[in-house]
């Protein structure tokens, strides 16, 4: 398998995951804005921060408005992480690796691109927003399903998986980082409607609201949310879950190599040092500092994967 192909598969999956996460983030932001419990502008600022596009947005826009933020994240081509840009990049990478993916995966990516281009050709009206975001989530899920259902479980399969879980871990970490202050135990206003909305918004933006209720019933406070998002092994968007998947795929790849990849050591280090303890350890470390450290480890891991698998010359 070509290094270039591994690179293309990795980024195809990363961009699709990014588009999906951005859609989920917008849904959450919109929900908070509509329930009017939060401060709307602040909320959009925090949505932009979670998406990792706040600085670029500020450089291009004087003030933060809902319309501005929405368009920036949905359609703006200067924003390489907007949903439109992400899907375009995903398709470009899929074209590049057309021979590695099945026809069904390619058609699912192409159909996602065709629908998205169509829906995002013009500014999205507020009343159309829910349908557009739902369609994006469904289409990206369709691609994931096709990868799952039609691709051989060989080295080609590992790279889209690695791209997906790296992007997902990165996203979950950023969500926590932007909202870490509402999760700190020192905040005394526990259980007020505002906090409930913030906690709920964090859970919703990683599609974990239902799972959390199932696990903790009507109870569950900030420490439980932190545990759920970082350490829970069953939650498919938690850091521990993503790291576990990454470790598994890197182990698969190592099995067929003469020289083991360093990336696997790095992900094991991440698991042992950060994701094996309990919530108390995390709060002792400092939630913000902890998440910053994990984000650093993830970036380093991505760099190592590029080197190990010869993505570039």
């Amino acid at each position, binding site marked *: *398998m070509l290094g*270039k192909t591994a690179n293309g598969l990795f980024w195809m999956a990363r961009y699709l995951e990014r588009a999906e996460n951005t859609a989920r983030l917008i849904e959450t932001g919109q929900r908070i804005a509509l329930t009017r419990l939060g401060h709307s502008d602040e909320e959009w600022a925090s949505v932009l921060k979670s998406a990792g596009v706040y600085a670029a947005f500020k450089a291009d826009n004087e003030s933060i408005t809902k319309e501005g933020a929405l368009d920036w994240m949905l359609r703006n081509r200067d924003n390489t992480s907007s949903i439109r840009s992400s899907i375009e990049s995903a398709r470009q990478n899929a*074209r590049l690796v057309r021979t590695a993916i099945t026809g069904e995966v390619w*058609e699912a990516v192409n159909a996602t691109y065709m629908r998205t281009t169509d829906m995002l050709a013009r500014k999205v009206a507020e009343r159309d927003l829910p349908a557009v975001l739902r369609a994006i989530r469904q289409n990206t899920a369709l691609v994931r399903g096709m990868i799952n259902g039609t691709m051989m479980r060989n080295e080609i399969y590992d790279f889209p998986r690695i791209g997906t879980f790296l992007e997902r871990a990165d996203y979950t970490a950023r969500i926590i980082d932007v909202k870490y202050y509402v999760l700190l135990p020192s905040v005394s206003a526990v259980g007020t409607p505002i906090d409930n909305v913030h906690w709920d918004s964090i859970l919703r933006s990683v599609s974990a609201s239902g799972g959390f209720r199932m696990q903790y019933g009507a109870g569950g406070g900030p420490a439980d949310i932190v545990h759920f998002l970082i350490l829970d092994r069953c939650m498919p968007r938690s850091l521990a879950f993503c790291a576990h998947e990454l470790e598994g795929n890197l182990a698969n790849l190592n099995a067929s190599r003469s020289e083991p990849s360093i990336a696997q050591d790095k992900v094991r280090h991440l698991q042992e040092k950060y994701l094996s303890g309990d919530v108390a350890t995390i709060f002792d470390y400092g939630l913000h500092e902890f998440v910053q450290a994990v984000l650093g480890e993830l970036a380093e891991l991505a760099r190592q994967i590029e080197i190990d698998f*010869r993505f570039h010359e």
Partner: protein
Amino acid sequence: MTTADNFDEMWGTDESLREPYRGFCEWLDLENPARLRAKQREAEELFRLTGITFNVYGKSEAEERLIPFDIIPRIISGTEWLRLTRGIEQRVRAINAFLHDIYHKQEIVKAGRIPEEMISRNDAFLPHMIGVTPPGGVYTHIVGIDLVCTGPGEFFVLEDNARTPSGVSYMLENRETMLQMFPELFSCNRVQPVQNYPVDLRRSLAASAPTGATDDQVVAVLTPGIYNSAYFEHAFLADQMGVELVEGHDLRIIDGRVAMRTICGYKPIDVLYRRVDDEFLDPLNFNPDSMLGVPGIMDVYRAGGITIANAPGTGIADDKAIYSYMPEIVEFYTGERPLLQNVQTWRCSEPDALAYVLDNLEELVVKEVHGSGGYGMLIGPTATKKEIAAFRRKLKARPGNYIAQPTLSLSTVPVFSRSGLAPRHVDLRPFVLVSPGKIHVTPGGLTRVALKKGSLVVNSSQGGGTKDTWVLET
């Protein structure tokens, strides 16, 4: 030009149906036009979804277009095809013998059958190939012979595409689309399959490897990249053959072999099916600015370390000036009379021919010797006075750059238009695979159709479409 006197492949002059179309038309008569129109739209959707697109040169990089597909097949009888196949095989045999000869002893020049300067002064002649014999002696592993038909059984060769003929993915996808949309048609018509082409291609390439045929030959397709107009086809063929699709920057010369960068290090390649032109193949030996090729690949090739398909330097065989000598070339190397006719051709480099061409521009088609894709040509009968005058000046300035041919009355096959069936001009590109000791012609090929009424230009870059091409069982 679409007058009653051109040959229609479906209908005879007395409105009688020609034999190969009988089974198809029985089906067509029972079809509802509204359903067919819906099917035509469905076909377009299928093409768009599978991404069968081509990029248009000179347009923005992102632009991808569909080649229009017409649902009425072009049908050729089994006996007619057999006759064509013999002619094609003979011609391809001659082309390979000619290429070997001009890069070695040049017997054909010594025998006075082709003027020496036609070779030595030809831009398509590649001095790097002098004295080089490709593995297995095969120069053109893949050939597309462009044929036109002017009457019952009257086929002429318009062009021999011996460099990197394209369009085979459309032959395959057109059939796939027809099978999906009208499965019943293939139950009641016995159509010879084309679907083996990718497997045949891989076998044929593997059989041409430097060490001879084995099952584990590493084959790869070299593409200029995703912005190339035929990128879809490159990816499609690599995918269908189950081989890697590589670009120049994935390759490197290691220990005298051409190797590709895999996730576990560099892996040597035995056969490279390149879809990159000669001059971009090797920046060390040819165009030094090329980013598409592999520095030093020609040296590996000359040392017998890799098979390049098609071999570098094959362009001289499909050069339009050499084309006019094809009847002599076929006779010289096969000792037989050519089974397929050439179109009469005036070489404007010759004073008598030039005088005739200048006197008859209104009647003739004039082409650039090195042009392709339907660009830079004059079609006398449809050109304006101004266009003819402009072309006359160009022709006088560089006569050696042009050849001229009579305007052929190309055959028509109906297309499914808004107002029902309408005759449109077509050509045919069958695809030929050559490996040591073997020539294989896939039954059918790519039928290109000029969608504009009366137009003779079938090129996809200029508004042409395609049809499925059926060869019936004998």
